[in-house]
């Protein structure tokens, strides 16, 4: 297990290193001078030059890259030019919205997709199967942000059950805060659930033909018990792979949906940081997104080994 773990950790570190380099280079070539951003367009050129020196912008790129990564490793994220606060705190504050949103959406996705997928697989070819497949086909074609607008129209404008946007804040109580996350989470989950349901269905159908399923039935398990206990477990490798990929899509989808619902999460922060040329913040936010994606892929790799012990041997 340890060799497997070390190998995966090394891949993780290498990917993050490469991602940080790419992000640094991309932000380097972005037009806009942070010193001018801070001082405003009317600022005295000498003051701008002085600030550039103070911010360390006159140092060679390699030195600045090392200073950035070194700072991050030491837990030092720098200060946002536009918000004038330490970036670490800012990221934590925004993560407190985006992470619960993604988690609720992922939970919804899993619950809908597994039940619909297993249901359709067990009744392959029936009217129920056809209906589930048709619905998933439709779900994949619906843009998440449009579905979000429709949800707002129905549940916020017409019925008034949920807020049309904004975030109540965790200080307002868990109930109020969660209420602002319900519609965004549903909108996020729809497309992902449709994709995952299709994957679950084909994975379970493949497993249904296996010998061990016949054995499970022969030893007296009901069809239902055999399906959930043995069928789903063996179909999980494919399902978990797709779930890992989906989590990345989910964080990306959050960027759009946080804008639809005016939620002050990480995605909206990234969007605003880029449009306001807050380059230090841009680098940190984009890297944080990459860290989340890579970390989830790492967890998926570990999960494989838990679900299917054969994976460790072949690693």
């Amino acid at each position: 297990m340890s060799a497997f773990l070390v190998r995966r950790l090394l891949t993780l570190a290498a990917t993050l290193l490469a991602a940080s380099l790419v992000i640094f280079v991309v932000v380097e070539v972005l037009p806009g001078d942070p010193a001018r951003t801070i001082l405003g367009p009317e600022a005295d050129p000498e003051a701008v030059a002085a600030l550039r020196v103070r911010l360390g912008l006159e140092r060679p790129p390699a030195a600045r890259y090392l200073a950035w990564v070194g700072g991050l490793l030491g837990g030092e994220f720098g200060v946002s030019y536009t918000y004038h606060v330490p970036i670490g705190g800012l990221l934590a504050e925004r993560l407190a919205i985006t992470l619960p949103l993604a988690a609720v959406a992922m939970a919804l996705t899993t619950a809908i997709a597994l039940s619909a997928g297993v249901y359709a697989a067990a009744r392959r070819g029936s009217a129920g199967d056809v209906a589930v497949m048709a619905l998933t086909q439709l779900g994949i074609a619906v843009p998440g942000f449009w579905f979000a607008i429709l949800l707002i129209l129905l549940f916020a404008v017409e019925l008034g059950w949920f807020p049309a946007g904004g975030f109540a804040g965790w200080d307002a109580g868990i109930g109020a805060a969660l209420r602002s996350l319900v519609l965004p989470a549903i909108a996020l989950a729809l497309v992902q659930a449709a994709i995952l349901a299709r994957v679950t269905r084909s994975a379970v159908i493949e497993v249904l033909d296996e010998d061990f399923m016949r054995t499970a039935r022969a030893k007296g398990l009901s069809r239902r018990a055999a399906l959930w206990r043995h069928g789903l477990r063996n179909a999980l490798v494919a399902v978990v792979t797709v779930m890992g990929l989906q989590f990345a899509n989910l964080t990306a989808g959050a960027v759009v949906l946080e804008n639809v619902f005016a939620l002050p999460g990480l995605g909206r922060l990234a969007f605003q940081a880029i449009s306001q040329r807050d380059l230090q913040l841009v680098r940190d936010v984009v890297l944080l997104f990459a860290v989340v994606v890579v970390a989830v892929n790492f967890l998926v790799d570990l999960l494989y080994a838990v679900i299917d012990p054969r994976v460790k041997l072949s690693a």
Partner: protein
Amino acid sequence: MMGSSRGASTASLWVGGGLVGVVIAAALVSLAWTPHPPTAMALSERLQGPSAVHWLGTDHFGRDVATLLMAGARTSIVVGVIAVGLGFVIGVALGVLAAARRGWLDELVMRLCDITFALPAVLSAILLTAWLGPGPATAIVAIGVFNIPVFARIARGAALTIWPREFILAARVAGKGAFRITLEHVLPNIASVLLVQATIQFAIAILAEAALSYLGIGTQPPAPSWGRMLNEAQTFMYLAPGLAVYPGLAIVIAVLGLNLLGDGLRDALDPRLARGR
């Protein structure tokens, strides 16, 4: 069972083809004729409901919604075709090269794909906007770049299954080089897989273009775009909820059509894949 699944795949092909046909026809017709001029504003007729004059009503500038939808189809198709074409050409070239050469080159191409996948596509598109400025070209580049690793992986995976085949060995014995073998034997054999993927990527590109234009970094006004229409509709949601419905339906028709077409094509071109699913 075989019979019914073949029937379903034929249905996918026809329904998908039909929906895509409607969207393409709307775009083509809009080049020559639209119910009203696409940019004609009439503030006295703003936010009207459907009528004989304005089939789907008017927006907040008094522009005809049906006209905007037709012209918007054009934007979606142009951005989608160029973006997917870009990703297709570069991605397939990298993929078949990696499969033909293997070794460090293969490793390099695949790791580059991994890194691209680690960066959320929407964020990279926004970064690109900060660099190139908002506009359709930015959307095309952003969507195109994310198509490269998709096609590279598919092309590489498919090509790797072709290389060990006997007819490749025969071609090698006949003295053909890797480049000629790739061109004459590998590419024709993986073309159907790539075509199916291209159809699906086209659907994803239409969704992406809509999302980017919704965020305000894709197609810019006054050029009509479905995503842009949804963005503007959200402001007038309380006054004219219909405005937020039609552009979304147009997107669903285009994307659903392309996905069904892709499924149908896959089953028609490769019966082995159809049975495996």
